[in-house]
């Protein structure tokens, strides 16, 4: 009797990418189920950088909590300071001086450019173009110089305080900012030459990891990742918090929600942020930079959820006050953490080489994901 030929079969295998891996943006671990080079499933494993910031904040006063927000998304500390300060101000009914509001917006937008530069740079680096990364980092230095001038730090600024900002926007900072704004179109044109116009770069990201608007909305994604799918939702426009309501800027959106759109949205947002900063510089009024905040801050009993447009999406602070100097409970809605849910969808059916570009186009910062 003829024996039945053994059926041909292939086996899937599991590849643990990270937490030690050159392109996992810190300590992200992704369990890839692979069929050859094709990804069947990508499961992010989080928690390697969990420091319990929410728990730590429960035993600190509101003022002491602020530096912890620097360490959430350490690339965009200004935006985190901004979000937390706004939440406490809403809880304690503190009115912020107008000059401080404008300075805050300038800083938040500079930080957004900074963060997007790193996002674009790491995308280039993950695709093997390390030169692209270093060009982005070169231009980022100019922003760090401005931050250094206003608050004396290049990272973890703790500059935006409850009730205002800690130092004035000096003339030197102004001239540095203006010099930087002049550079923006120049370096954007340079990236267009080095990266956008590069055939290999284009082929690596066009049509890769696509996502429809409905999928992104279902997954609760926010920020550039959502806007790349074509949904023009930006909290700066939607909520118009701080002085954003008075400023004129556009919301760049993509079309297909692929890596190309996410990259383009970031590039265009840099230009829009530069526009916002220019307007703020023109409108910057004279006056105080700090409101009268009591030495011992005791917000009334109650709770608040205040959100702002962080660099990676909706950054929300939920604070429960029991009337003492310390918050009873703080919860941080971290955009990177929620956006991580899209990773599986973005990686499925792609190749190993595409998974790294999916990581860097989601642009997670593990300090924020793990909190």
């Amino acid at each position: 009797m003829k024996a039945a030929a053994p059926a041909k079969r292939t086996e899937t295998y599991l590849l643990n990418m990270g937490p030690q891996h050159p392109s996992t943006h810190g300590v992200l671990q992704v369990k890839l189920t692979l069929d050859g080079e094709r990804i069947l499933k990508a499961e992010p494993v989080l928690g390697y950088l969990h420091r319990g910031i929410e728990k730590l904040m429960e035993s600190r006063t509101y003022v002491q909590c602020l530096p912890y927000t620097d360490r959430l998304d350490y690339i965009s500390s200004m935006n985190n300071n901004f979000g937390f300060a706004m939440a406490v101000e809403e809880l304690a009914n503190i009115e912020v001086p107008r000059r401080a509001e404008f300075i805050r917006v300038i800083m938040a937008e500079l930080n957004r450019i900074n963060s997007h530069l790193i996002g674009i740079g790491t995308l280039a680096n993950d695709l093997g173009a390390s030169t692209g990364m270093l060009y982005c980092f070169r231009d980022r230095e100019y922003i760090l110089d401005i931050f250094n001038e206003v608050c004396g730090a290049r990272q973890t600024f703790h500059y935006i305080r409850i009730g205002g900002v800690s130092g004035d926007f000096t003339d030197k900072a102004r001239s540095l900012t203006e010099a930087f704004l002049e550079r923006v179109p120049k370096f954007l044109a340079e990236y267009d030459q080095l990266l956008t116009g590069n055939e290999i770069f284009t082929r690596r990201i066009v049509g890769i990891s696509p996502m429809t608007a409905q999928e992104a909305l279902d997954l609760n994604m926010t920020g550039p990742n959502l806007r790349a799918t074509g949904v023009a939702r930006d909290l700066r426009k939607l909520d118009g918090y701080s002085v954003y309501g008075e400023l004129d800027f556009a919301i760049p959106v993509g079309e297909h929600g692929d890596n190309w759109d996410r990259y383009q949205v970031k590039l265009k947002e840099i230009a829009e942020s530069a526009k916002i900063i220019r307007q703020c510089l023109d409108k910057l009024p004279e006056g105080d930079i700090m409101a009268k905040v009591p030495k011992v801050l005791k917000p009334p009993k109650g709770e608040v959820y205040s959100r702002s447009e962080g660099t990676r999406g909706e950054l929300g602070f939920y604070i429960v006050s029991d009337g003492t100097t310390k918050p009873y409970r703080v919860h941080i809605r971290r955009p990177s953490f929620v956006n991580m849910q899209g990773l599986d969808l973005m990686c499925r059916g792609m190749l190993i080489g595409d998974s790294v570009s999916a990581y860097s186009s989601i642009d997670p910062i593990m300090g924020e994901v793990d909190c």
Partner: protein
Amino acid sequence: METSFLSGLALWLRGEIYGVTGIPVLSDLALDVIGIALLLGIISMAAIVFTYAERKVCAFMQVRLGPNRVGGRFGLLQPVADMLKLMSKEDIMPEGADKVLWALSPALLFVPAALVYAFFPFDAGAVLADVNVGVFLLFAISGQAVLPFLMGGYASNNKYSMVGGFRVVSQMISYEAPLLFSLLGILMLTGSMRLEDIVEAQAGGLWFVFLQPLAFVIFLISAVAETNRTPFDLVEGESEIIAGPFTEYSGMRWALFFLAEYANLLTAAILATTFFLGGYLGPDFLPGFAWFFLKAVLMVFLIMWFRWTFPRTRVDQILSFGWKAMLPLSILNVFLTGVVMCALGLV
């Protein structure tokens, strides 16, 4: 045979040794040993010079300074420091590795990389192994370099290495074909597989880069793919699979891979020089071997330039490009060469 500085030197040496020993075989043998030592010297010098050059070139392109601490302002001793670091590193063997294959892989990779140097005409008459099927042997030997990669990848007991090994096989096999086909046109024009004949055929400034521009482009792209450098460095693919087959190697074993990589880089440059840029030919004010190395170094710089400008391609793109674009184009080149030769009555 034409005389040149190098071949003249060899003749003089042979005479001297013959004068001392009086046995012709011994003098031939001694000369071969000297030649091999020289070639190994060239390879290791290339690795040393290119590590430094790569760092400086890449720094220059990336608005950085590059090495500037070890050995003065220009960091001239950086390769020495690199070497010392590599030599003092612990040799770690992963658990569950196939010990024999694992240890053999770097050595086996280095052998073909070094062996092909025997065929290169560094100057008129200055060839260690002057064979009339040089081109054929050269690619037969260098094609063997696929196996050690796969061996290392398989033996490391690491999935990244494994994926890297698979990538090497698919990539190198698909680019071997267009690489060879791109040279067919030249072989048809010269009618010889001896490398020195090919160089001599380009005398008078009519380099094959002008006669066969399409072949040159195909050759260059394929050669970069064969040496596994960006934009075709999928094998190492640092941001994807860490270091591919080399992931688990450390210390001097890794240094051997490194050495082979730079030897291959120089090989690619030398081949381009020999086949397309007129090899050692050039105006008389410089000796032939100087022209030869000048052109080779320029080609190395060009390949480095690629590396620091381009992103990496993806594995499916590189394969479809190789089979669907490069191979048909190289065959078209052969066809066109044949047609033109027929039309000119050269056949």
